[in-house]
């Protein structure tokens, strides 16, 4: 208990920022806790961390944590983060987004950031709904599920965010949930430490907007659903396909080495300097 209080005092902002906007039982607070523990374990200073967020419930996280924080426009957190990283490569960039934020309005930025491979971490809290605006269906709302704008059931099909990140070329991709907290701590730690573009998709509960409309129960019931439907990625290959039907994998999906954009750019700078020197009479 003593240790937790110390972390909270160090990493959270105190004056005028609380109470937070999240509903009681929201998974966002669990993600913030995991993030703080991961950063603490990595021994990073608060001054060297930039926490950028987009718009929505997840986007509010940047207000509460005591880092260099940026509450960007909807879907654009990664574009701002890209500029910051290019300007100050020594900073550790973490972008926190929601599912609509990262894969709806910001989908283009997300896949290109993964492809480009700047050394930064994208945390996507996937609660399968646009929560802050009142429960409209998002790019990850399951087919047939109910939402404020899908009263008769959702006609669209959901993105699998982590698999999308793998295909787009991210160096490190993992999926966790707000139920599997010790593992989430480790996934965030690995993702932030990874040299390259990291994506951690975190399945979370929005009982207020998603659960209520889909008869999924209270936060505890929804977390139990996460527990029962999560299959460790390392085991998934050995299981019969019908036994994992309707479930999702958790853990590290991809951990691969790709050239880091900024390291590559150093080579460009050296060549350009040489060319400029030769051009001078």
């Amino acid at each position, binding site marked *: 208990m003593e240790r937790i209080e110390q972390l909270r005092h160090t990493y959270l902002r105190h004056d005028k920022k609380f109470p937070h906007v999240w509903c009681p039982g929201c998974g966002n607070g669990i993600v913030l806790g995991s993030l703080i523990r991961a950063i603490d374990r990595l021994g990073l200073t608060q*001054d060297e961390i*930039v926490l950028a967020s987009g718009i929505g419930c997840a986007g509010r996280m940047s207000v509460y944590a005591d880092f260099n*924080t*940026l509450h*960007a*426009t909807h879907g*654009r957190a990664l574009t701002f983060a890209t500029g910051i990283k290019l300007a100050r490569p020594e900073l550790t960039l973490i972008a926190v987004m929601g599912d609509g934020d990262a894969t709806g309005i910001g989908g*283009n930025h997300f896949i290109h950031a993964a492809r480009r491979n700047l050394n930064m971490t994208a945390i996507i809290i996937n609660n399968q709904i646009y929560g802050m605006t009142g429960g409209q269906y998002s790019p990850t709302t399951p087919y047939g599920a109910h939402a404020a704008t899908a009263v008769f059931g959702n006609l669209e099909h959901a993105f699998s965010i982590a698999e999308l990140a793998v295909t787009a070329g991210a160096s490190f991709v993992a999926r966790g949930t707000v139920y599997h907290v010790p593992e989430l701590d480790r996934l965030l730690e690995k993702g932030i430490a990874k040299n390259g573009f990291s994506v951690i998709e975190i399945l979370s509960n929005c009982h207020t907007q998603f659960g209520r409309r889909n008869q999924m129960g209270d936060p505890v019931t929804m977390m139990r659903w996460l527990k029962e439907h999560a299959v460790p990625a390392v085991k998934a290959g050995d299981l019969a396909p019908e036994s994992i039907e309707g479930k999702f994998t958790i853990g590290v999906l991809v951990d691969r080495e790709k050239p880091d954009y900024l390291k590559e750019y150093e080579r460009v700078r050296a060549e350009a300097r040489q060319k400029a020197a030769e051009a001078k009479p």
Partner: protein
Amino acid sequence: MSGTGAGRRVLLQGNEAIVEGALAAGCRLFAGYPITPASEISELMSLRLPAVAGTFIQMEDEIASIGAVIGASLAGVKSLTATSGPGFSLMQENLGFACMAEVPCVIVNVMRGGASTGLPTSPAQGDVMQARWGTHGDHPIIVLAVSSVADSFEITVHAFNLAEKYRVPVIILSDEVVAHTRETFVLPGPDQVEVVDRMRPSVPPQWYKPYADNSRGVPAMAAMGDGYRHHVTGLIHDESGFPTQRGDEINALVRRQFRKITNGFFEIQMTRSFMMEGAQVAVIAYGSVARSAKRAVRMAREQGIDAGLLQLVTLFPFPRKDVDQVLRQCKAVIVPEMNMGQISREVKRVNRRCRIITYNRVDGQLITPEEIFEELGG
């Protein structure tokens, strides 16, 4: 390029001169997306920036481009993006963020004709009002117009200096004629260019308030990573940068953002008078049209017509003080524009003491000196 010493005579096109101006002003990051007729700025930046330890990046679209530009500026690096109409439309959302969070940056819009895809390779001036009011909500902004290659250098330096001094995005409006015409001009040496940098905080980090008011209305700006941890948001915020719903704090922020531009009006207002002495009829023009107007005024003077020219370099805040003098002095004023009349309405708003004649051309052709000369009574 040839010549030695501090200044040297160079032959450049307008887009290239913008690159030279940006580099001279200390710009060290460019993020952009290909678009005609602005692409030369990207291309030259990709070549020049890495050689001066700067960074070039081609983003996935114009939304991302201005996002990266704002991010870089928040991290303390002067940054630029360049585009044309369709891309400028995409930038409006994040342009508003730069206004709200008071992030200095420069956006070049080499205007093309028409709405939508329009006329990609023809001169036009249709984006004037978009530059002022394109992003939603009340916001402060500075808009400058370039009329020549030499201007493209000089005004770009000014644009960066004003952005840094007032913590606002500055829009440079260019057009196809200026962007692609090659002209010689004397490129000043590094020591001859006055460069302004944003005010940094002088207090210890725990005392720093990122949006605190002062006599100029322009708060000191710390770079991310300098130890002044603070929050930056597009929400209406209090002086410590955190979202607020309190009426007194909302009012203070919005009014300060307008006051900082009002306070600096006489410095920001840039115009050029040509043969205005004793002028009875004047042309008020900007961009490449101002050059045709200059020639037309000369032609008129040769015919004994008392003509003059007021060239607007600053379009917003609208240089009403200088325009007012011209309207008081003259019997008639002609406002030729390559649009359906955007600045002429601003001129009419200043006062109606003399006859104000609008002259519009929207067929993708430039306005010739002869056309303006004819309007002057030639």
